[in-house]
């Protein structure tokens, strides 16, 4: 297996409600930025992470669509879907293709165009990541599912609504330093606790938003990157993925994201690193409780102490392990298929030293964790500056 590096990264100028851009325009803008950053004149293959373009805009076959509009035909172009982990899973496919030796230059993008439907329809479309017949049938929504998890965590570990709010406060504080973010402004604990209740105990400001956006990276063999890259080279040290039950109620422990823990264990082993080596992390904070539970599953925080981590500043910039310096899904936005790729981009920028005011000083090792459903799919990657 060959070592793999990231040669280029690209995002949209800004994420949010991109009324004047179509699904294809959103993707191609980010992909062209990645190709320019990489400085390559051709690609061998591409993957597109996308959760549910069929429900959002009625378009399937988006691998082909994007190759056509990126003018990369006839290279192979494949869509990868694992709900909100689509981007992370697509990145893993690109990594595997370069590592295997089949292709040298692979573009991995992620995209979602979510604002062409009403809020109701978007909620229903996202529900398709749950068990349609035995969860969604009974009227449970995604905020509702995470609310069920939150209540178990709160009752068992004493986690409070204030601690949940601190996750949103922290990520908005980071996001305020990210011009690409959908909501680049700060919020207070009082703002979060005073915002409308969506699914008790989660308020609207505990939830990530509905977002249009795309993100893309170009991968190549590490040896090639060392020769041609004009930017500091970042290597993919580990790629791991794990699956769990699709239904939350089938889990023995609803306050523990087992698939993330299993993917993390494999990733730490593959990278020859441990949680203590991680200096910056982008994790799947689709809801504030999700970041808390994910940090525990990644062993970055002691089990049951995820709430305290946000409250104490441990996971803020300047803390022991800065988490979601991009603003996370919460402030940067959560175009579901793009999120996993955008997480990778933030870590690459951190390890290149390009993160500007939100730079984690001296960061050499970073981690991404991307999750589908309530943790039915988890993808973990570890990166190292070379």
């Amino acid at each position, binding site marked *: 297996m060959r070592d793999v590096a990231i040669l280029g990264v690209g995002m949209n100028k800004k994420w949010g409600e991109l009324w004047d851009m179509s699904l294809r325009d959103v993707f191609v803008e980010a992909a062209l930025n990645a190709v320019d950053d990489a400085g390559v004149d051709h690609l061998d293959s591409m993957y597109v992470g996308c959760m549910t373009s069929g429900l959002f805009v009625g378009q399937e076959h988006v691998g082909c669509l994007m190759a056509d509009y990126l003018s990369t035909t006839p290279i192979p172009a494949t869509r990868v879907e694992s709900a909100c982990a689509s981007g992370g899973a697509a990145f893993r496919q690109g990594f595997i293709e370069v590592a295997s030796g089949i292709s040298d230059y692979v573009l991995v993008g992620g995209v979602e165009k979510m604002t062409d439907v009403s809020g109701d329809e978007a909620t229903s479309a996202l529900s398709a990541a749950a068990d349609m017949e035995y969860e969604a049938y009974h009227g449970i*929504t995604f905020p*509702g599912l995470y609310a069920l998890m939150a209540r178990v965590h709160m009752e068992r570990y004493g986690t409070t609504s204030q601690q949940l709010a601190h996750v949103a406060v922290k990520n908005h504080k980071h996001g305020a330093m990210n011009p690409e973010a959908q909501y680049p402004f700060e919020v207070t604990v009082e703002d979060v606790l005073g915002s409308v209740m969506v699914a008790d105990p989660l308020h609207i400001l505990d939830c990530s938003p509905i977002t249009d956006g795309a993100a893309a990276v170009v991968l190549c063999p590490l040896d090639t990157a060392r020769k041609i890259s004009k930017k500091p080279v970042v290597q993919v040290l580990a790629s791991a993925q794990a699956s769990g039950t699709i239904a939350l109620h089938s889990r023995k422990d609803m306050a523990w994201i087992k698939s993330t823990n299993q993917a993390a264990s494999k990733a730490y082993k593959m990278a020859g690193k441990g949680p203590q080596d991680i200096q910056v992390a982008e994790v799947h904070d689709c809801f504030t409780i999700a970041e808390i539970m994910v940090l525990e599953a990644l062993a970055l925080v002691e089990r049951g102490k995820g709430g305290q981590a946000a409250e104490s500043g441990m996971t803020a910039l300047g803390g022991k392990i800065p988490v979601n310096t991009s603003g996370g899904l919460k402030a940067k936005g959560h175009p579901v298929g793009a999120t996993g790729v955008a997480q990778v981009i933030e870590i690459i920028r951190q390890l290149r030293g390009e993160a500007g005011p939100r730079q984690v000083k001296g960061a050499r090792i970073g981690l991404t964790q991307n999750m589908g459903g309530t943790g039915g799919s988890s993808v973990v990657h570890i990166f190292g500056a070379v």
Partner: protein
Amino acid sequence: MANPARYWREIPQRYRLEAARCTSCGEISFPPRLICPQCRSRKFETVTLKENGKILTYTVTRVGPSQFADQTPYAVGVVELDDGVRIMTQIADCDFDKLAAGQRVRLEFRRIQKQGDAGLLWYGYKCVPV
């Protein structure tokens, strides 16, 4: 509108609580599966779920999908039935402020949602506090 087969094929579970018990390890799968998640056996017998159980966790959905618009806000929870099987279900006829983990409940046959432009009524189980 989807083919109504999608609805009626779930009737044994939604109306009659039919589950599959693995004849090898005793694990009960609801809905039934073709291979046991515990022991990988493929032999099952049909059993009926217990109708009583307790709430493990719950929420009040205040922003719901359109087919539940006439019920919003409504409580939903994970209930552990007395045979150990866990299900997702609405909690009907309850005072939201008095909901609690551990609360005993009983399953009842109820209307679940009104589907599509034709307003097709879909039925199944909901739990009520006892």
